[in-house]
């Protein structure tokens, strides 16, 4: 009877405690990510990043000591993160699967897009939540319908803030956000040498004859807005739509930004190959941008939303100045 009574008391105490758990108490952090509340026991100590953008962002926030694994590498990690990256186990160079992720017993998963959280990849968000694993999706993948004026950089800043809170790296996150804001401010003060809109084509890759370009809701789209130029496919509401050479010729870009994917090594990935394609493709070879070689080259990986995207902004501004479109 005595034992029963004390067990009963213990249960009541437990129930009371869990009632308080829904309110943020010193011990958990909750952020909202793409429609789901992500809660971890603060700070997260076994973070697994499922793709390169998430990996580099987490490393850039100084989260390496709290990371349990990384996955899905497309290119070499940026040199400034190399050492930190090597201190974290690489789970797989290819796509992460449900088993691989569970082996390291993570408490937080970070991915740039929601499709990572499906049965085909690491498992659904609900399934992982039941196991006590938080699933974070980059804010860039789910722009809020009620705040359409937030561009990709604003959403990235939100990511940095959220991830900083989840991993206990708030100070680092603030530094990263400040650096990004400085770069944006400098770029927005750019003086363009032309009154008519300068049209820019952002070419990521050509796959099986289809050119993939940057649409409106993308980092290049945001960069175009900041610099005051026009992204020729900014009206397409997709991050990387596949278009046609005719459509490109039709829109007559003044400048072509080429994504350098030489590390991926697929045919047509290097800048040289892309230039060769442009000069031989009948639809576009006559364009001024091609004949006058108005090209700007940026690392392809930095055109995707990540902590490195601000480099693209800086490279673009430098390119504009070099080509004489800005001073």
């Amino acid at each position, binding site marked *: 009877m005595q034992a029963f009574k004390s067990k009963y008391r213990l249960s009541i105490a437990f129930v009371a405690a869990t009632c308080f758990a829904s309110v943020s108490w010193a011990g958990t952090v909750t952020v909202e990510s793409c429609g789901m509340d992500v809660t971890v026991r603060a700070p997260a100590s076994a973070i697994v990043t499922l793709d390169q953008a998430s990996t580099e962002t987490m490393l850039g926030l100084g989260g390496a000591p709290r990371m349990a694994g990384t996955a899905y590498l497309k290119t070499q990690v940026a040199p400034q993160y190399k050492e930190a990256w090597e201190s974290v186990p690489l789970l797989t160079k290819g796509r992460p699967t449900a088993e691989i992720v569970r082996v390291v*017993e993570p408490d937080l998963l970070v991915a740039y897009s929601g499709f990572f959280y*499906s049965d085909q990849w690491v498992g659904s968000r609900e399934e992982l939540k039941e196991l006590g694993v938080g699933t974070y999706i980059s804010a860039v993948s789910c722009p809020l319908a009620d705040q359409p004026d937030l561009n990709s950089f604003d959403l990235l800043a939100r990511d940095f803030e959220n991830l900083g809170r989840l991993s206990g790296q708030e100070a680092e996150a603030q530094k990263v956000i400040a650096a990004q804001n400085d770069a944006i401010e400098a770029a927005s003060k750019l003086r363009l040498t032309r009154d008519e809109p300068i049209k820019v084509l952002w070419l990521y890759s050509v796959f099986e004859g289809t050119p993939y370009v940057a649409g409106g809701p993308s980092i290049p789209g945001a960069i175009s807005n900041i610099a005051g130029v026009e992204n020729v496919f900014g009206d397409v509401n997709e991050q*990387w739509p596949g278009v046609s050479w005719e459509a490109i010729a039709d829109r007559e870009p003044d400048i072509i930004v080429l994504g350098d994917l030489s590390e991926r090594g697929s045919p047509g990935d290097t800048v040289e190959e892309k230039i060769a394609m442009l000069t031989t493709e009948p639809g576009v070879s006559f364009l001024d941008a091609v004949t006058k070689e108005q090209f700007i080259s940026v690392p392809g990986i930095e055109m995707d939303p990540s902590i490195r995207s601000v480099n693209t902004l800086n490279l673009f501004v430098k390119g504009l100045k070099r080509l004489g479109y800005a001073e």
Partner: protein
Amino acid sequence: MLDPAADLASSIPAEIARLPRGLGGVALTLLGVGAVLLSMVLAVQIGVAEVQFSDLLRIVATRLGIDVEPLGRMRESLIWDLRVPRILAAALVGAALAICGAVLQAMTGNALADPYLLGISGGASTGAVFVVILGFGGGTLLSTGAFIGAMVVLAILLLLLRKGGGTPLKLVLTGVIIGQFFSAVTSLVVMAAGDAEATRGITYWLLGSLATARWTPVLLLSILTIGGGLVVWAHAHVLDAMSFGSDTAQTMGVNVSRSRLILLVVCALMTAVAVAMVGAIGFVGLIIPHAARLISGPLHVTLIPFSALLGAILLIWTDALARTILAPQEIPVGVFTALIGVPLFLLLLRRRGDL
């Protein structure tokens, strides 16, 4: 064309044929079942994460309430939520596809028939891409979409075949045409609406992968496979008669059109659930009935259960291979069933004297 007489002559080794039939059959069946169970127990331990048989026993004991030290939550989830359903799914899908392969081969009188002849996989892939690419997300919704797509194909098939039943030629043609149509729709949706990564995700499913197996669909599949398998087994004599041609079957007193309808619907359901869960895994339905025929003989009363057992064993082991050969990466199992299936098929053709 299937040649039951020649199969009978060439398949059963003389010594076994001389044994009292009952004993040989029972012994082989027990051996088969034992092989399947052994395969499951061994395969559960193979994979990226190290799993011991003792871990599995501990999980079962914990769930039964027996007092053992429980495994860590994540580890338990890895084994119980991922590995075990995956092994069971491999066995069930292998069995389902093999049974339906045997049925289709008998119904169409064509040695090259497989369950996807009905166009089910085409419809399922269309349903799946609609769900994934048009943005309803992956997860269980993909399977639901695939199943609905498969059912649409079945409905169309039944509609087109309502006059004159399903004569073998009509069945083959209708199934192939519908399948091609839906495959084209799938390609269209993928090209037009897919972004690079979603397309990649659906490609893995289209190639067939057991990574998506979870308990709920596995339980559904088990009911359908066991139930459907029993229905098919009950029609064993009908299938034997059909192998001789539908005219001959009719003269033997078989209600051909009604049996065809039942078998068609049962197989379509089994294939639909299997494909919805794991995608279109090829070659199992094609090869296994022929391989099983070599052991069990051409009569369907033994061919059906043996196809099921062999199909289960094949898929359990090819899946184990697919998830370890390039570890930590997982190759879709459909790739391996083709890589293994083709040489096996050539061997079989040689054995039958066709090569």
